[in-house]
């Protein structure tokens, strides 16, 4: 999966990789009379020039490049990068289906380029007219791809607004399972941190690269989609490959020990990817994303004695081993008892309530990040977990979250943001993300 190649040949040479929508936004410069084919030739040439000019950092880890086009979108099973910039967008009033398609085409084009370590367009940061603002905002000049992945998806409101308006003629194609999440015990959701017609998840090993991606995609969207809310994340809280160490969340515990890994094809097929036999057909190879902004009561937690912290998680803090014994990867034994005869792993511990064995084998792929948004007005750390999970159906998350209703951890967390989106399959080279929805 990982390559150090600077360019994706399919991107550079496929004339269709520059959708006509781009000329509308002038991303490729505003050469009069140049048609779509001509623009695409320009893009190919620019791809090479862009590498030569800006991104000469071959060979180091920062140069990790993941293919953009493929059966699945990147940024799901991709080894979890260190930094996140997540953004939810709403379509603007008066936009139509063509605007939406053009936006997705423009986003795909720019995302494909950026994920290969290139500027958003051929003229990029400094190659355009001195009389025009550059197409690319420029803060990633000189930075390699840093494993950047950009993942895009569709919220329930894109298909039908809450008052039932079908703005883009998509209501009939809405996945039946794509519904606003039900209320959960302990939710204290802020509407301004929830939902959105579209989402963009940008992950990279350099925070500036991730921010550059969202900033430029937001700019491309001006007039068509507007930023609804966004979230910066750092310190990944899950791993998706066995060779990644299990990271820790802001409670100081290893998180996601039992996550679905990228090489576990059976588990991915069963729990993460929408199957060819699932409805609707355009989602085959896609997934569903749930985002939850989970605020942590950091100061309260930090005053909690170690044994109580461990009881809450059901794991020990140092190794991450289940309290039933063994090492981090040892399967928890929920029947084991301690010295007093009570269960070694508390019945209300996080590990037990979330465990597949107690949820009919229900699993999800977690990809969350820690966040610290400065401090609250009360002087406490405004921090927590930006939970992201990918699953074959949103129902998997709903079942899991309901199972966590009695979680001991609930005392120390509040869910303040929420969203669910359909994540279409990856785009074929020359096509765009979500093309199947409009076919």
């Amino acid at each position, binding site marked *: 999966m990982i390559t150090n190649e600077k360019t994706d040949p399919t991107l550079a040479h496929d004339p269709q990789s520059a959708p006509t929508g781009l*000329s*509308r936004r*002038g991303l490729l410069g*505003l*050469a*009069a*009379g*140049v048609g779509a084919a001509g623009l695409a030739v320009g893009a190919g040439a620019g791809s090479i020039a862009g590498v030569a000019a800006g991104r000469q950092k071959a060979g180091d880890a920062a140069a990790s490049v993941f293919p953009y086009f493929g059966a699945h979108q990147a940024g799901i099973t991709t080894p979890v990068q260190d930094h996140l910039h997540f953004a939810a967008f709403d379509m*603007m009033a*008066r936009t139509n289906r063509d605007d939406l398609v053009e936006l997705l085409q423009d986003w795909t084009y720019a995302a494909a380029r950026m994920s290969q370590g290139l500027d958003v367009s051929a003229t990029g940061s400094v190659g*355009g*007219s001195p*009389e*025009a*603002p550059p197409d690319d905002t420029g803060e990633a000049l000189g930075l390699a791809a840093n494993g950047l992945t950009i993942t895009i998806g569709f919220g329930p409101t894109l298909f039908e607004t809450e008052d039932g308006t079908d703005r883009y003629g998509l209501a009939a194609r809405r996945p039946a399972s794509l519904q606003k999440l039900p209320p959960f015990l302990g939710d204290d959701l802020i509407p301004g941190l929830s939902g959105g017609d579209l989402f963009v998840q940008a992950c990279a090993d350099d925070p500036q690269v991730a921010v550059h991606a969202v900033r430029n995609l937001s*700019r491309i969207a*001006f*007039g068509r989609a*507007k930023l609804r809310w966004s979230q910066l994340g750092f310190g990944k809280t899950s791993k998706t490959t066995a060779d990644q160490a299990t990271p820790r969340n802001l409670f100081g515990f290893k998180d996601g020990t039992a996550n679905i890994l990228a090489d576990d094809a059976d588990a991915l097929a069963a729990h993460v990817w929408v199957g060819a036999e699932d409805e609707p057909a355009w989602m085959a190879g896609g997934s569903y994303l749930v985002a939850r902004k989970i605020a942590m009561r950091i100061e309260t937690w930090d005053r909690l004695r170690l044994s109580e912290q461990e009881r809450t998680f059901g794991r020990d803090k140092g190794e991450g081993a289940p309290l039933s014994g063994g090492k981090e990867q040892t399967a928890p034994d929920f029947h084991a008892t301690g010295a007093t005869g009570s269960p070694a792993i508390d019945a209300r511990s996080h590990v037990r309530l979330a465990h597949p064995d107690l949820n009919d084998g229900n699993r999800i792929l977690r990809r969350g990040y820690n966040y610290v948004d400065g401090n609250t007005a009360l002087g406490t750390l405004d921090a927590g977990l930006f939970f992201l999970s990918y699953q074959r159906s949103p129902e998997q998350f709903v079942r899991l979250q309901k199972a966590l209703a009695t979680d001991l951890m609930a005392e120390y967390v509040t869910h303040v943001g929420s969203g669910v989106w359909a994540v279409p399959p990856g785009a074929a080279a020359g096509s765009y993300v979500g093309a199947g929805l409009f076919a």
Partner: protein
Amino acid sequence: MIRHRILAATAATGLAALALSGCVAKADVAPQGALTVTSTDTSCDVSTAKATSGTLSFDVTNSSSQVTEFYLLADDGLRIVGEVENIAPGAERSLTVVAQPGSYFTVCKPGMLGDGVGKAAFTVSGEAVAATGDDAEQKQKAEDLYGAFVKAQVEQLVPAVDTLVAAYESGDDAKAKELFPATRAFYERIEPVAESLGDLDPRIDYREVDAKAEGLDWTGFHRLEKDLWVPAQDALNSDGETPAWKDWAPSTPEERKSYGDQLIADVAQLNTYVHSDDFAAALKAQGIAGISNGSIALLDEVAKGKISGEEDWWSGTDLWDFTANVEGSKMAFSLVKDFADAKGDTGKKLVTEIQQGYDDLDAALAKHGSLTAGFVNYSALTEADKREFTDLINALAEPLSKLTSTILE
């Protein structure tokens, strides 16, 4: 001659028909006899109020006692389709324009100040005129019209400031408060021009916090504003920190006279400048890119100071300034849009997007009032209202930022 009506009425005639024009191919246009205009001290008599589209020639005779000007204005009464100025008493000059079908106004301006006399409707009927012309000539015309627009705004600003200051100095605060936002509109439509003038804009338009930061004596509109909308004892300045009454007290009558007279003098200096060769040379040096960039700069003014409500901190009249900035921006755009429109499909799409952006922004502003009927106080806007303005400005400013490079291509 640039055709530059941009309202919906002309849209129906189709963009294609509205090509650049400088000199009209005479054979294509039905010849019309010259129209005559007589400018007196109190009237502006045009021989007819109706004409057929094509080349129109207005022969203007100045029968007033002062130097006069004659304008043909678009139906918003703001944009100038053609003008002839510096007509001495007793002299005669001609204005030749290529008029497209539509509604216009004719107006004379004896003394070259104020909003003129004898403003009357003027209707052009017939077919849209396809015209040809030399590009350099078109650009020259656009520059001239922008210069005329700036001059016309300042010429209206001068007497408006006189009236405002008279009320302020005489202590008629109610009247001064009513006049304040409407007077500023003339200034806000041409703000980038005034700002290009070193120390003039600081004297006319600095807020208290700006003057303090730069160690300047605080004068101008906002000094008057704070005297007229006296802050509560516990109010804070727009920095959100300094008490409003720290180093400040309501002006005495003597101080009011001093600040008022200073504003009159500064505005007079601005008027002198925009009628000077220096200004003409500056316009020429910047060319149409200067107009296009001015259009962008005015939207930046909105995004920077007006959306946040920090411009008119005490009066809350930011929406007047906001609207005037947008009008100035739109005016500048209207003068150069044909150059973009002529740059193939890309240019046409850009023009359409920008036009749509102005229409959406106008519609959003209209929900809160108008320059003529007045706006709600800025404090009445919700965060959602401000968010809508921000989104609409982003939607407009992004394509607008590509206007200059498109024109210069």
